[in-house]
């Protein structure tokens, strides 16, 4: 897992979030899930993608703390190291 870069994770997270509706150009590190209209079910699905791709298990408690795209990327990268 040490080969995973922040850029790779960010690109995968943006790709996944974009599949839920928002335009990819709106999905910046500072964008909040609320602004992007990303709901809790979307985050559950994001967690599954992250688990499948990076072996990182995100629990419900982890997801509740996340407010922005950047926070999600940082959490995934820190767990993947």
């Amino acid at each position, binding site marked *: 897992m040490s080969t995973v870069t922040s850029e790779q994770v960010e690109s995968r997270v943006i790709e996944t979030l974009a599949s839920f509706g928002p335009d990819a150009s709106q999905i910046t590190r500072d964008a909040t899930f609320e602004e992007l209209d990303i709901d809790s*079910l979307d985050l*559950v*699905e994001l967690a*599954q993608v992250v688990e499948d791709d990076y072996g990182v298990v995100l629990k419900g408690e982890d997801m509740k703390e996340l407010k922005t795209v950047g926070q999600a990327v940082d959490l995934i990268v820190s767990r993947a190291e």
Partner: protein
Amino acid sequence: MAERPEGCALVTGASRGIGAAIAKSLAGDGWAVAVNYRSDADGAAAVVAAIEQAGGRAVALGADVAAPTAADELFAGAESHFGVPVLALVNNAGIAADNLFSMLGDDDWQRVIDTNLTGAFRLTRRALKAMMRARFGRIISISSVVGLRANPGQANYAAAKAGLIAMTKTVAVEVGRRGITANTVAPGWIDTDMTADVESGLTANIPARRAGTPEEVAACVSFLASDGAAYVNGAVLTVDGGLAA
């Protein structure tokens, strides 16, 4: 309406009775079906053989749904055999251990809850992974009229079956926007091995004046799994000859 993505069906407790009829019915509808059994390998093999003889596809998979590892084993087995995700799950496996409430032991309480409710919980949780990705899924839980209306001697069974209804409704509202439906079928008195000991005099209480057949339950499951039922979500369909009306 979007075309249904490719997927297979998993029916738990499908070696005989209602489960076997459901497996055959879904196979007849074109689903490749994983036929789960706990102990009756011969029964499951006969169901698979009947499906294949009719031109369908099926595989028998042994697992006790009460075991915490069963969900992963069954989904891995079905998906590797058919090469497609499970997009229709029928939570049918169930046991009964009847006794008057005051005489009901902890063990008989727990094993009925473990098989009939906790097993369905784990399987449904596992099923949602692929269904959410596919934007399509059919979850059908086989409850019982006993989950709606009391029957003496079945507190454990009733608690599990009522729990199944509430659990399935919750799933329906959580994932409905992903193209997934979750519904419950509540059979009344159906003529199977499980009800072989029930007095036949009970038919007097059933408006239809007869027991139902496994095939009559299976027909309802087939409908709920079909594209035609895409807008039916969180429903409880009683199949009881009018008993609970």
